[in-house]
């Protein structure tokens, strides 16, 4: 199975949006779409208010996506980053895509392909028309800061493993703590049809949950030592190996354990360095830069100090060695060699694999993700790592130059400099990929008891680095919170 790329809806071309809409309308017309609405309505105990919230919806979305691809093999689920595209005028709501807010009187959506008047979008449950009430029950969508509170929690979930869990990534993301937050808040903010259990009636449900799924994937990469919880002792259907409804009732065994590696399911997200076409940002290179300090060719670079002497061979040799290090930067090269990229989703042919390896260590990413399945919960340093991660500034307490250790105060310039911003994102992705791979390798070594105390400290530091780079990365993706 080839891995397919799920993209940010804001980056889709008009043609990609049109194909997505057409495929959704086709599923509606052939009756498939409403089976998803019905499945979601019947899935309260299994799919919500507990640890299985994320894997259940991963499976639900994947099935929906495969059904879309039966209509149009080119279509993938787009995701909606509601921390960025957070206004009633975001292009998401254009008439050419999902249509806009509902009309004041009754909330009926009257624009776009899902308006009742089109005759294509009659609701069987909670009908007859799609309704939206932007901002009526919640003033605003979640912010990157809100999101970071969840992303920085290194524990997947905690007892009692339900909506009363007072910490843990899952319940923070689902949004029950001081709720509604994050996932729940988005349902509330959109309002109308997105409120009840029939919320898949609104196609934005799938873009919303696709982002939630991406956040889970990001979190897994960010916390390679943290696994799914609980293995046992949770509510029925929510333990790692429990089969989930409604699929069990149809003779299919789908467990959380089978859903942890989204690459194995055949898709990836556009921030993972796997979706190569997305990484080419040459198209909209900014035209007006005003960086005055950019690194030019220095006139006095590399002035040899021993002008008067013939260069002693030893000195020269030593210089060369140092430069090799600088140029090649290869603590990871060895690792990469040891881990041949043999993963199942990489059956797209040798040229692609070559290219993957060229993207800043992308070839090792899969390794980091695989290791997510092995929780290193016995790591005595994990608690401290968590402290670093919840540090709202993110980079204090670790060795980094001061100016780089503090978050940006303004990202306003980025709006004029999309190329630069995207280049920075690519660079950070590459750093995250490499760091994730190194962390995964060392955690494996640690589990086998191969790390010295000093190396454990280094591992600790690497985790803090990873969290800090992720903070910066999120800030860049957020495009402007300071």
């Amino acid at each position, binding site marked *: 199975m080839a891995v397919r790329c799920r993209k940010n809806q804001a980056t889709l071309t008009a043609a990609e949006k049109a194909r997505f809409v057409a495929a959704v309308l086709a599923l509606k017309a052939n009756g498939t779409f409403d089976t998803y609405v019905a499945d979601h309505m019947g899935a309260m105990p299994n799919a919500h208010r507990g640890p299985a919230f994320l894997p259940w919806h991963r499976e639900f979305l994947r099935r929906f996506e495969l059904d879309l691809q039966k209509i149009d093999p080119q279509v993938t689920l787009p995701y909606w980053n509601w921390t960025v595209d957070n206004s009633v005028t975001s292009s998401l709501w254009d008439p050419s895509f999902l249509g806009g807010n509902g009309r004041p009187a009754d909330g009926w959506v009257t624009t776009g392909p899902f308006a009742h008047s089109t005759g294509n979008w009659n609701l069987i449950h909670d009908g007859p028309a799609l309704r939206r009430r932007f901002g009526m029950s919640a003033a605003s969508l979640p912010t990157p800061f809100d999101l970071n509170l969840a992303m920085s929690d290194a524990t997947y979930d905690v007892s009692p493993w339900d909506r009363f869990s007072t910490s843990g990534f899952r319940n923070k993301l689902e949004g029950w703590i001081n709720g509604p937050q994050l996932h729940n808040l988005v349902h509330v903010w959109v309002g109308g049809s997105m409120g009840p259990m029939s919320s898949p009636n609104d196609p934005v449900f799938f873009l919303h949950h696709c982002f939630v799924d991406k956040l889970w994937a990001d979190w897994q990469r960010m916390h390679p030592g943290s696994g799914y919880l609980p293995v046992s002792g949770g509510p029925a259907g929510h333990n790692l190996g429990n089969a989930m409804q409604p699929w069990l009732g149809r003779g299919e065994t789908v467990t959380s354990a089978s859903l942890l590696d989204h690459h194995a399911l055949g898709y990836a997200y556009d921030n993972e360095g796997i979706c190569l076409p997305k990484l080419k940002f040459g198209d909209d290179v900014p035209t007006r830069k005003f960086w005055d300090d*950019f690194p030019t060719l220095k006139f006095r670079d590399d002035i040899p100090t021993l002008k008067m002497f013939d260069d002693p061979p030893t000195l020269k040799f030593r210089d060369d060695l140092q430069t090799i290090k600088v140029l090649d930067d290869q603590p990871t090269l060895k690792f990469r060699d040891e881990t041949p990229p043999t993963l199942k989703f990489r059956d797209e042919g040798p040229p692609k694999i070559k290219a993957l390896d060229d993207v800043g260590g992308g070839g090792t990413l899969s390794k980091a993700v695989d290791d997510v399945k092995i929780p290193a919960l016995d790591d005595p340093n994990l608690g401290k790592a968590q402290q670093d991660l919840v540090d709202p500034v993110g980079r*204090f307490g670790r060795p980094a130059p001061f100016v780089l250790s503090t978050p940006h105060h303004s990202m306003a310039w980025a709006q004029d400099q999309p190329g630069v911003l995207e280049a920075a994102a690519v660079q950070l992705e590459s750093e995250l990929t490499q760091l994730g791979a190194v962390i995964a390798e060392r955690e494996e070594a640690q589990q086998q008891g191969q790390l010295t105390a000093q190396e454990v400290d280094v591992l600790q530091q690497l985790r803090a680095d990873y969290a800090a780079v992720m903070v910066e990365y999120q800030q860049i993706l957020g495009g402007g919170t300071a």
Partner: protein
Amino acid sequence: MILVVSSTRDEHAMAVLRHLARLGAPAELLDLSRFPKELQISLGSDPAGGRDTRLRFPDSREINFAEVRAVWWRRPQPFEIDPAIRRPGHRVFAYNESHEAFAGLWLALDACWVNHPTATETSARKPYQLRVAQEVGLTIPHTLITNDPVAARAFVAAQPGGAIYKAFSATEQEWRETRLLRPEEIAGLDNVAYAPVIFQEYVPAGVDLRITVIGNAIFPAAIHSQETSYPVDFRMDMSQARVEPVTLPAETEASLLRLMARLGIVYAAIDMRRTPDGHYVFLEVNPAGQWLFIEQRTSQPITSTLARYLSTYGAGEN
């Protein structure tokens, strides 16, 4: 002829080259990243005092450096060593040797420079700029450059109006805006131990001034940064900033020209700030600064002035 050491990707270089063509001034673009793979340099000296320095392009065209009367040193590109050379040590060697040949060529060249490479480098040094600016009569902010956390904390605490901090360089790789130090960041000041940081008293702005100087021509522009989303650093939100041409007090203009002379440069983009009570404070000088983002908004004839400057000095015969 006029030599522009830059690249086709530099839109400032391309804008000036277009103007030079309009003026009919002979000009050549030299992109050093094409060296040594595509370009061939020969520097000949004979005992009788003759010198023959030529650069040949792949199409056999040549630059005879004896004819080069003016050089615009506009963000030259690093050399690109032939990828056929694979050993890192060999690549560094080839780079350094290329650098040596050209660095010597530039020093040996009799030409009018905008700006000379040596002056470009020295004038960009921030502590040096501050000293010279002060000596020519400009007001500078109270400044501390340090990697001592204790000294940094003391300095910050002593600034009643707050302190800003900034990096020496803001590159696209590690871009950092100038920032007003936030209370929650004081805890992190221990990290200045890892690299020096520039701390300055916060100078309240009436307006920010970007002053482009070419020879004796001064183009001051007021950037109304206080109306933007990020008043601390006007570069952050240029798209929202109102920009307009302004005039400077005669004494400030005179100081700026003395500054240029002392730094040995003829082109500069200078950042200053006019405080709400009308004082002019020098912030920094950028010997290779940008101007198109100013010219677009103010219509000040900066590109054409630079082109004329180059053609005046560069078009003459030997």
